[in-house]
């Protein structure tokens, strides 16, 4: 759509800018402030320069949390995106079942995150939870409160349960936007299932898949509430992701300087990776 140049449009965006600026810029500057100062409490601050940044960037604890975070995000992306796509491709296109499927699938998205954590915490308990009891009954020795691998398994399964629906709904919306005529033309040409997917469905899904990957990347990188309720970062530090580590430093130990520096590094990593994903995917779309 060709748009008219109109500087007065700024008046329309002003309320949004003011509101978001109040919430984004003031707290962000506070964090920046923390990150370059030393404090011993009582609101006494002294200049610390880039000490905290150096400390964070060289800290093994930060590297470990970052590595866990990257691993977790990679695992859930590799599972959720293809799974969501497959489910969306197999969804009914019309009829009464469509609404039923969509409403039931959307349910996990509307449950408060701590309830999601609490729910899985109980569901996976080896003595009173259906999942934990079931796995032990089949013959696995499963106890997510003690075994790091089991904790990871539960965490990933919870995230798949919680968020795959988002991918399904996005892909489904993309599929529904393909006109019937395309499929009929493919049928006339005798195209196989794979050819239809590769040449008709996949190109149309590029935009929604970009959104799905971006949203899942950002949100899984920020995972906090569900994880802290499910495992509390444990056993040991096995599931201490970036947000959890940050909260431990900021609120647990009240080390505002390192916490501030870590916040900024963390935010910049998300921004950088999101931008990278976005440009890469948009570039492949242009080709």
């Amino acid at each position, binding site marked *: 759509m060709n748009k008219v140049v109109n500087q007065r449009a700024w008046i329309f965006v002003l309320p949004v800018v003011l509101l978001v600026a109040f919430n984004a810029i003031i707290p962000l500057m506070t*964090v920046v402030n923390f990150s370059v100062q030393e404090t011993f409490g009582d609101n006494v601050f002294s200049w610390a320069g880039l000490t905290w940044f150096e400390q964070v960037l060289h800290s093994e604890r930060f590297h470990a949390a970052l590595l866990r975070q990257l691993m977790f995000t990679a695992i859930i992306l590799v599972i959720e995106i293809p799974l969501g796509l497959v489910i969306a491709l197999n969804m009914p296109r019309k009829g009464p079942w469509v609404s039923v499927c969509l409403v039931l699938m959307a349910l996990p998205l509307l449950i408060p995150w701590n309830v999601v954590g609490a729910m899985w915490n109980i569901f996976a308990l080896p003595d009173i939870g259906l999942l934990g009891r079931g796995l032990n009954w089949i013959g696995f020795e499963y106890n997510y409160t003690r075994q790091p691998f089991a904790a990871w398994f539960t965490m990933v399964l919870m995230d798949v349960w919680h968020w795959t629906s988002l991918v399904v709904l996005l892909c489904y919306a993309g599929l529904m936007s393909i006109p019937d005529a395309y499929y009929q033309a493919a049928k006339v040409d005798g195209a196989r299932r794979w050819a239809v997917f590769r040449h008709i469905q996949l190109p149309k899904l590029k935009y929604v898949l970009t959104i799905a990957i971006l949203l899942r990347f950002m949100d899984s990188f920020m995972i906090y509430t569900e994880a802290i309720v499910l495992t509390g970062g444990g056993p040991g530090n096995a599931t201490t992701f970036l947000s959890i580590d940050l909260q431990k430093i900021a609120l647990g130990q009240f080390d505002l300087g390192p916490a501030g520096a870590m916040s900024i590094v963390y935010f910049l990593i998300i921004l950088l990776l999101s931008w990278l994903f976005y440009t890469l995917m948009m570039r492949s779309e242009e080709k």
Partner: protein
Amino acid sequence: MGRARGLVPAVYILFVLLPIYWLLNMSFKTTNEILGSFTLFPSEFTVENYTKIFSDPTWYGGYINSLIYVVINTVLSVAVALPAAYAFSRYRFLGDKHLFFWLLTNRMAPPAVFALPFLQLYSAVGLFDTPIAVALAHTLFNVPLAVWILEGFMSSVPKELDETAYVDGYSFWRFFLRIFVPTIAAGIGVAAFFCFMFSWVELLLAKTLTSVEAKPIAATMTRTASTSGYELGLLAAAGVLTIIPGAFVIYFVRNYIAKGFALGRV
């Protein structure tokens, strides 16, 4: 082929419902039954957990607090996002692309980063422990999202609609409120749904910005779990009740939900 097609979503839905069923099952059990035996159905069916929640003000007050800030947030986010989304979809102006991107970056800010500064900011302006503080804090991610969704819906409305109205002598605001807003009602519904959803499920900021007066239900639950032992049945019942507002809201937007999840752009 036809049969296998339906099987994939069916299995997935079963997987989605299992943990929810377990929560529901537990909410109708007595604490003794939960801890003492492993049963797939409640053997002594009880609604005591629910009665307790509906009769104790610290419990049902939590729901009211949560609903208050979620509703304020939804109304506020959509109200400020409407004119902004119109500006982005119809006009070009200095810095429009940068502004749009800057708004979206706020969606990428981890709440954990902002928790402490938010606490200081809202204490400084005297809003700490009010529903307004949480409603305002949640606009950080909901306003950008609402602008994004509404801009998508508005861009699909042909510009001729605006031009015809002006030719017919409508003033801008009369056109906007009488013609344009009803035209994109579906988009507004979807945007409101998303704001409701993200405000309802967020806990970290809501918990940080409240203590007693405006405590959200989700925070009430965590406190109960730690202070009075582990009353699992009560916790389960409270959890089940947090699913209901969401389910209720989905029902209203069920026909637009697929489109809405694609953020209006498909």
